[in-house]
Each structure stands twice: as C-alpha cells, then as structure tokens.
C-alpha cells in the first residue's frame, strides 16, 4: 500500500503528503502479501511503474561496462530508502564499496558479503555448502539481496534460492554478464552505454538502453545511470577544481 501512494503523491502539496502518507514499515517489504512492491530507483520509475515485486528474482544483465552493477546498487539503495536491511553478495570479490555508497545505499542498513575464505582455495563441495548456508542466511535476514556474478551459483542452488525468496518475500537482484534467466521473473537487459564527458574529458554521466522483460510484456527506454549525485562527499564539483587533469 505504501509505495504507490508515495509515487502518486507527487502532485500534492507538502502538507498533503505529510498528512496522507501512510507510515511505511520496513516489514512491508518482506512479509506482507499482495500487490505491494518496492518503489524502484527514480531512473527506472517509468520503465518499472509497477515497482519491484518482493519475493521475485530480478536479473540485470549486460556486458562489463554496461552499467549492470550500478543498477544493482541503485536497487539496493531503493531497499534502504524504504527502510529495509539489504545485503550484497559479492561472489567474485569485485564490488567497489565506494560505488555502492555513491549509488545512495545507506551504510547503516547495508552489509557486504564476501564468500572467499582468506586462507587457500577450497574444494568444490565445501565451497558449495558454505555458499548454500550463506544464501540461506541472506534470504532469512534481508529485505533485498543483490548478487554480483550470479553465474558462480549453480543451477540447482538457484532453484532453492527462488523458492526461499518467494517464501520469505525477499527481492533478489542478480546482476552480471550471465544471469539465471530461467528462475528470474523480471529481466533487465542493459545495452549501448553512452558516457557524457565533462569539460576536462572526464567521465561525467552515463545513459544506457534498458529493456525490461516480464510477464506483462516488454518495454525499453534509455535511462540515466550516473548516481554520483546521491553521494555528497568529495563530489565531483568540489574535486574537479583541485584535480587538474593533464
């Protein structure tokens, strides 16, 4: 109930919003049944007007550099914005924590999970069972779980993840070059990234074509994928002047 109400409230005055806005409980994200969905990040609000359905697996695929990881971080940020605890399972250990913060994820509700044991390589079965335990814990405890490099999870395990996510009403976002298409209910395909450069020739803003495939058909559009504005730390305006590119 909460999320659509907030979206449609954009034409109301502030007082009306304050008056009418229902109290948002983070638990709505995970335990409630029915049509409630997580409000998607702003850049996807047109393509995904129905929101992100809890209990579903969303695949975000695209070649390296297309923006799949950034979009995954943005969806985690949507989860923390709604008051949920979110986690990112970084299977290859390649996520950049700074980019997660730049995407607007609230660090107070975010846990980065890495499965690599610090000492030595593990044998196959041991790694698989640890991964299964870790996935079980993630799906029990968090409202939104992002998974980077989802091809590192076997097909058998994906079936269990899908069942568990549906039971627990957890939104799972699988982002990478290869994604589990057969278990996902919503596919986001990213393509044709385009960067805008600033006066100094540095990367400034990016757009990419996003094609959404789901049970309701297909939609596509070019969306902005430059979330740096959400991060008000040493932002680009401040640092640009002191940087002095060659």
């Amino acid at each position: 109930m909460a999320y659509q109400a907030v979206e449609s409230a954009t034409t109301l005055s502030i007082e009306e919003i304050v008056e009418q806005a229902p109290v948002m409980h983070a638990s709505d994200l995970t335990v409630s049944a029915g049509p409630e969905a997580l409000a998607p990040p702003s850049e996807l609000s047109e393509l995904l007007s129905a929101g992100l359905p809890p209990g579903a697996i969303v695949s975000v695929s695209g070649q390296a550099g297309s923006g799949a990881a950034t979009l995954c971080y943005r969806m985690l940020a949507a989860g923390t914005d709604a008051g949920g605890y979110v986690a990112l399972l970084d299977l290859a250990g390649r996520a950049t924590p700074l980019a997660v913060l730049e995407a607007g994820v609230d660090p107070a509700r975010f846990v980065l999970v890495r499965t690599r044991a610090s000492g030595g390589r593990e044998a196959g079965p041991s790694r698989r069972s640890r991964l299964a335990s870790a996935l079980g814990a993630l799906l029990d405890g968090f409202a939104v779980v992002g998974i980077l490099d989802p091809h590192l999870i076997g097909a058998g395990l994906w079936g269990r993840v899908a069942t568990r996510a549906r039971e627990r009403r957890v939104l799972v976002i699988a982002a990478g070059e290869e994604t589990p298409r057969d278990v996902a209910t919503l596919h986001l395909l990213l393509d044709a990234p385009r960067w805008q450069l600033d006066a100094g020739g540095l990367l400034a803003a990016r757009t990419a074509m996003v094609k959404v495939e789901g049970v309701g058909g297909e939609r596509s559009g070019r969306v902005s994928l430059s979330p740096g504005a959400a991060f008000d730390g040493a932002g680009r305006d401040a640092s640009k002047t002191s940087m002095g590119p060659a």
Partner: protein
Amino acid sequence: MSERVCSLVILGWEIAVARGADPDLEGMPLIVSSGGRVWAASPDVATSGVRPGMALREAQTLSPFAAVVERDEKVSLSEFEPIAEAVEEITPVIEITAPGEITFRAKGAARAYGSEHELLERLFSIAPVVGPLSLPGCGGVRVGAAVAPGRFTAAMAARMAAAGREAGCVDQSLSKEPVDPTRGPPAASIVVDDGDESAFLAPFPVGVLGAEVGAPDLPETLMLLGVETLGDLAALPARSVASRFGDAGRLAHALSLGCDDRPLLLRSPHSPLEVTCALDPPALTLDQLTFAAKSLADQLGAEMEAMVVSAASIRVEAEDERGNLLTASWRNESGIGSAAERARWHLEAWRPEGAITSMRLIPEGIEAERGRQLRLTGVGGAIDPALEARAERAVSRLQAVLGPEGALEVGAAGGRLPSERAVTGAVERLPLDDQSRGRRRARRMPPWPGTLPSPAPARTEGVSAAVGMSGSTPFDPPEELKGRPISAAAGPFRYRLRWWSPSEMLEADLWQVMLEDGTAFLLSHRHDGDWLLEAVYD
C-alpha cells in the same frame, strides 16, 4: 537507589602471595608489578609514595631498593580460592572482584544473619581459619569489610576499614582485633547508610579511580587541574567532565557520586550452570546434532529461568571421536532461545571430521536477570526491531559460516583513489549506524585534493592488460585496450602513494578510458611499464 552491597577486601594480598611463593622476599621491601605498572606495594614501599597504577620506572625512582616481582594472577587466584569457598559457606552467590576482594549482595545475607553488623561479624569468623592456613606470609595482611549502597562505595569502605583509618561521617563499627597470629589478621568493618555514599566518598583522593575506570593517567590529570578528591570531582557538572575526559571521565564522575558502573558478576559454584549431553552412538549428521543442541538449550533455558539469572555470553563445546574439542562462544543478546540455532550454525561451519561424542552448553558471565534494555536507535525515524533482529541474526550466521570477514560494513573515508575512499570492516554489531555514524558523518568531509572524481568505477578488475600506446612518453594517451580502439582517454593522474614503504609503494599513472562501444575503464600504468586494468565502470 543502589542496592546494598557487601565487600570484603584483604589488603596486602598480592604482597603476601608473592612472599609466600618466594620466602627469600620475606621482610624485604617489595613491589608487585603488572604490565609495567605497580599493582601492589608493601607498606614500607608505600610510605615512600609508591601507589598502585604508578609506572614501574617512577616507583623504582621513589623506592630504589624494593624488589620487583611480576604478578602471577593464576597463583594469586588459586591461593584465594579457599577464602572464596569459605565465604560461599556464608553467602552462596559471590563475585570475586580480584584476588583478595570479594563482593556480594548484602540484603539477603543480612536478613539471614539478623543484621548487616552480624553479617560482618560472621564474615570475620572465617578469617582466623582461612588466613593463616593459606597464607604463608600473612603477617602484613589486613582485612576490611563493609556494607554500603553500591559496589564502588562498598569497596572503598572496605579498603578504608582494612587500612584502619577513621571515617568521618559514617557509623563505624570497629571490631579491631589485636595482632595475633592464631586469630588471623586484624580486621575492621564499616557500614555506610543509604544516602550517605557521596558524602562518604567525598574525602577520598581521586587516585583511587585510576584502576576502576581503566585510565591510569586520569587521576594525575585531575590533580593537575586542582581536582583532588572525589568530592571535588562530584561537584563538577557531569557534562563538562564527560566532554573533557570522555568515557573514562563520565565513569569516574558517576563513581564519585556513588553510582555503580556495572552489575555484580556473580558466580554460583554450587550449581554450575552448564548442560552436557553424551551422544551414544556418536552423532554423524547435522540433524542429530541440531536436535541435541535444541534439547540442551531448552534444558539450560529452564535452569536459568528457575534461578532467575541471565548470561552475558554462551559457549558451545563439541568433542569428536578423536578427542578434538571444538568451541565457540557468542554474546547472549537474543536470549537463550536462540542458543540452539546459534549452536547449529557453528556446527555447520565446523564441519567436524569425525562423529561428535559429546556436546556442552556453558553460560558465561552469569548475573541476576533484570530484563534487557532494548536499543532505541533508528535511521530516519523508521525502525522495526523485528527486522533489525532478523538482520542481526543473519549477520551472525554469515560470520559463523564465512568467518568475520564474510560480512562487512562499509563506510566512507578520505583518500584519493576509489579504493581508499570507502573502507570495509567486519560487522561487529547491528545496528550498523552505531559504528558507522562517524564514518557517515565523514561523508560530508571537505574535498580531498587529487581525488579521482565521481562516479567511481563499480567493479574492480585487477588484471594486467595489453594496452597500445600512441607515443613513448607517459603523457601520450593509450590508443587501444586488448586490441579494441580507445575513443577517449583522460589522464594521466599521477599517484605516488605510501612512498615511505617500499613494499606498499604504488607509483602509477591512472587513465580513464572509453571504448567505442561506450564502455569505460580505469587503467593504471605502473612505473615499471606494466599496464593494469584496474576497474570497470559497470
């Protein structure tokens, strides 16, 4: 209002133990040290100005002929054990605050023996029995006991009684024994009435706080500022003391008013609250073990409930056929009910090689159950405790399976490279905002010169790459990456990091490059000529 607490202090205990261990030290001036500081000093050394907590070097300047012995806590504790057992005959639940110091709740015991004075008399009745037996060098030992509101007040009163000083404003029921080896060491007692604690504590010098607040230098600083007694300290506004001295100051101020910093850590030796089950036949599967853990946790929960106690932490121990002992412990925050689940995670993570033959659950840090204070924290006003508890359990479980570094918290930090501007650390406690609040505040930090501007690359690569160059100088932009032409390049951004450490030094030129298909990468050109594909703007 603090509860009535009884404290029994044996002054000179450590010295007596040290002399007992080495009879050559008998009659010599003696300092017992621990960690480079004075732990205890014999009376002749103390007269030269040596105080517990003082740096050893300083103490040796004041008393150059004193022998110095390193404290052996194990010996000290084991020597003290008979005394603790004798006290347990009088009252069953006690805290051994330190070797030579016992604290317990006075209310029940005083009622049992008639009055607080009679309780103190009763305590001294053990002294002649235990003292000479367990202490070879007990001649210099003095015993003091006191009943007072609060632990700290009682401990101070007992010390004062043992030292045989006059107390100003309190009812002092002296039962000074003459020095007679057959009757045990001299003993005295003090009773501080409710409401008198701050007046009683006021004349004490601030030096007594050093060991209590864990800041040995605090008393000296206070004295330099003209705050010489606990009364002076108590008269200061609590907020000012806290802002000047932080946590240690806040604690010192609370103690000076007679407020206690912690509940008593009581032990109850007659009913060891541990539950064991032997598995016969040995359990091979996780399900069997989980079942055993569940019944152990239920049993422990029932026992603890019957005794109305709670535990600070719980330890699980499992022994396999080969005699290997696997053990893990955790803070008991979510109650005993979750112990079975926690034990299961650890069993799952251990993946024991052989069959498990026995399992134990041991509660640690037992104290009276007073209910738990829920944290009243929230982010953006909205917080759901159930949700938080779920996340917290998930993090504990992840860390049991993957190790502490498996679940990381992220915070912003200062630095130039993307990898420096965000830091990760193992999650220690949820909600994360307790620990990351400082770091999140750091997000609003001033611009860091030379930062590679946002956006940050979303994924690291860290692989070497074949890069084609257009020219031979480091300022010529690269032309192709892995055979694909580069359409735009910005750089070089020259970084020379950690130049003071040859092993960690990084000297590189960073380049932001964009390929014709619109993908962008971060490259680094090492000073040895190698190119590295650092990260991808994914």
